């Protein structure tokens, strides 16, 4: 049985071309970039080259890129690193943020910070009026994710950043899901901070970066030898950094080809599923969404059981059901769209990547309806009608 990977929002394979660039930095060019000898200088050159690649990918300056151990650390550094400089006041985040932002916000809340969670509409788009009204005199920061990991909705980031600035706050966006998938220009967006992660864009795990606009001051969370302009101490993960730079450069170079192809595949898959299975509902914004995200709910059956059935047929997907999320609650993102818990338990996410093909999408559309049928026949909630 051939396996089909439709879970690129969870992680992507490392592109062999990326790996090739990383490999010399394990056993041959293993130097510490802080050292002055030849191996040290080679490693430093590689790190700074990767920094230029990441900066170029975001339309940022090289001095505005801080390497971290991943997207979660970048989000934590943005929120906690920025707000720690002030006496506790108020900040704002979206209601459908990734746990990296959500839990950093809760940690700040325990330290005395007030936080507002801005609701989204049925498509997952931030309620602009609620957002604008949430700002207070002591609001220091707003953070809204660029594209949602569960339902794929892309937010109007430039407008959100502009409003934050008008209100005297800085703006951060978690762009982990979309860097490498959609064009990003931090200047045009007007954001002050932006998080990204290597393993979502065909780079390695364990590496990420935070864009920090010049003049935005942060307090480090990891203390030590003062690496990364004192913002993130610890000897640089040189192979990881090289991999991130290479991966982002590749993603940028191929985006003009990849993006429209994935969008067409996404719409084909969504259409095929929704047409062939009754009582399904597409989740997220119909057009303003990640090129590879297909999210929907299937009534009367539960997400994990769909996921496991698909797995036995070779398809690897993800679900926002309680079981899949590891708690008793279904995904907070799907509930925030206004769906009931019962329907949210039946959610499924397919996230496509560059190696996926039309044939794989067609195979899914063929395999999925009988799986739904089998599970519905087993469900006490399903009454044939």
């Amino acid at each position, binding site marked *: 049985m051939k396996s089909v990977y439709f879970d690129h929002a969870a992680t992507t394979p490392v592109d062999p071309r990326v790996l090739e660039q990383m490999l010399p930095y394990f056993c041959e060019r293993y130097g510490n970039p802080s050292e002055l000898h030849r191996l040290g200088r080679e490693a430093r050159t590689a790190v700074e080259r990767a920094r230029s690649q990441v900066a170029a990918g975001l339309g940022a300056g090289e001095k505005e890129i801080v390497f971290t151990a991943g997207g979660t650390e970048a989000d934590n550094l943005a929120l906690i690193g920025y707000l720690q400089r002030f006496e506790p006041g108020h900040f704002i985040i979206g209601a459908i943020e990734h746990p990296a932002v959500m839990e950093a916000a809760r940690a700040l809340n325990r330290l005395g910070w007030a936080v507002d969670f801005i609701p989204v509409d049925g498509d997952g788009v931030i309620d602009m009026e609620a957002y604008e009204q949430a700002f207070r005199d002591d609001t220091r920061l707003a953070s809204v994710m660029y594209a949602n990991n569960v339902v794929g909705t892309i937010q109007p980031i430039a407008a959100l950043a502009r409003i934050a600035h008008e209100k005297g706050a800085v703006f951060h966006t978690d762009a982990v899901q979309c860097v490498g998938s959609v064009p990003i220009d931090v200047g045009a967006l007007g954001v002050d901070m932006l998080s990204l992660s290597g393993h979502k864009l065909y780079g390695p795990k364990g590496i990420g970066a935070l864009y920090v606009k010049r003049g935005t001051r942060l307090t480090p969370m990891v203390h030590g030898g003062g690496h990364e302009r004192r913002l993130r101490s610890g000897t640089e993960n040189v192979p990881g950094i090289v991999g991130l730079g290479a991966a982002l450069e590749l993603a940028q170079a191929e985006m003009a080809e990849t993006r429209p192809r994935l969008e067409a595949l996404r719409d084909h898959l969504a259409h095929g599923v929704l047409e062939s299975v009754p009582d399904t509902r597409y989740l997220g914004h119909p057009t303003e969404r990640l090129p590879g995200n297909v999210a929907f709910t299937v009534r*009367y059956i*539960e997400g994990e059981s769909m996921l496991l059935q698909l797995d036995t047929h070779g398809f690897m997907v993800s679900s926002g059901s309680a079981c899949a999320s590891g*708690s008793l609650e279904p995904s907070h993102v799907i509930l925030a769209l206004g769906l009931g818990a*019962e329907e949210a*338990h039946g959610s499924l996410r397919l996230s496509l990547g560059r190696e996926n093909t039309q044939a794989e999408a067609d195979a899914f559309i063929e395999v999925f309806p009988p799986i739904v049928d089998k599970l519905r026949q087993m469900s006490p909630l399903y009454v044939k009608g």
Partner: protein
Amino acid sequence: MYTDLVMDHFSNPRNVGEIEDADGVGQIGNPVCGDVMRISIDVDDDRIADVKFKTFGCGAAVATSSMVTEMVKGQTLAAAAAISNKAVAEALGGLPPNKMHCSNLAADALHLAIQDYLIKAGREAEVPQILKALPKAHEHSSL
């Protein structure tokens, strides 16, 4: 995260369906929590002559439902009533810890079916004697 036996019962569930005009029916769970199990039984000479299930829920919910039907088919009411959720999980080679409470309710559904049978058969007085561990009204039993 699931044992091979759990995956087997999930992929090839035994005794799926609903007995028409069943002697007893028990349902437990709540769609809001993500699990609903319905078990119907036919009773003959104080033995479970037939048993079927329908389940809305995760892999563990389906597998425990399927397993409990296999465990009790042909058993006396008293023997079936003595089977606990824990025993069902053990028969499956164990469940992930986070599934032990939310999705492991199949024995409870069976016990409710036995209770339903006893009441319908005019043997209500025997309920406490046979069903020593009737499922308590916990967060899952809303229906």
